[in-house]
């Protein structure tokens, strides 16, 4: 069902329209909340708050962005608010220095990058990914979740996080390399 049909049904309070909204968006929103570091209860509460806010304001929703973009945008801000108390400030220079250290003066690799790229994702690798994700900032996690996992296009991802396309690239660069560095360490130490 397209956004226009869904909005029409929701505004008309058609039976089943709320169920259809939950059926389509709850799982991706829950997955995003989990990947952004929320516990299960907090993730469920954040998704409920997001959908509630949307339904309360549905008559004012103009459809200038897609439903998915709008809902993920609201979710991102709610998750950030919840994490703000425990937010760890990451030194942005860390990743740049670590990345630069991989290459010699001519920009050539110092050594072969190593990692589990030929392994299937099992329980151990799943827990590694979750541990490594804790080293990312909110914006880095959001950029990675939206682009790499959800496949959201660049323009929408920028709107959701509130950054430029250039900054989105920087966030993705830092997120992917933090994952790679973290996974390589765990791979070497296992």
């Amino acid at each position, binding site marked *: 069902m397209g956004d226009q049909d869904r909005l029409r049904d929701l505004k008309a309070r058609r039976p089943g329209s*709320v169920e259809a909204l*939950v059926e389509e968006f709850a799982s991706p929103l829950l997955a995003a909340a989990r*990947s952004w570091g929320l516990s299960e209860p907090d993730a469920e509460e954040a998704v409920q708050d997001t959908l509630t806010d949307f339904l309360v304001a549905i008559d004012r929703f103009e459809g200038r962005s897609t439903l998915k973009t709008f809902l993920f945008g609201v979710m991102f801000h709610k998750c950030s608010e919840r994490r703000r108390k425990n937010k760890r400030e990451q030194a942005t220079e860390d990743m740049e220095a670590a990345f630069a250290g991989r290459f010699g003066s001519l920009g050539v690799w110092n050594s072969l990058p190593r*990692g589990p790229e030929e392994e299937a994702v099992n329980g151990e690798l799943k827990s590694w990914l979750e541990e490594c994700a804790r080293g990312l900032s909110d914006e880095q996690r959001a950029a990675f*979740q939206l682009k790499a996992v959800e496949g959201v296009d660049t323009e929408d991802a920028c709107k959701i996080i509130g950054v430029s396309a250039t900054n989105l690239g920087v966030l993705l660069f830092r997120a992917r*390399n933090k994952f*790679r560095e973290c996974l390589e360490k765990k791979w070497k130490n296992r």
Partner: protein
Amino acid sequence: MSWIPTCSDVARSVSDGSYDEGPGGRRVMLRLHMAVCWFCRRYAAQVRWIDRAAKAVWGAPAPGDEAVKRRLIARLRS
């Protein structure tokens, strides 16, 4: 002189998502480097693995999602 990317340039473009974007000449040079550099191909394979693994972990519905959906529907309808 046309731009000749280093391993550092290629690795950055793979991870920031710009490998497939930008002017055609730039994309050709990145691909030429990738074709001859096994280290960069290894890095790109790792980045692709990270994306695939993350999709497997965070992209699919979790086993408890159906129960969560039922609770959400009940609360939203009230």
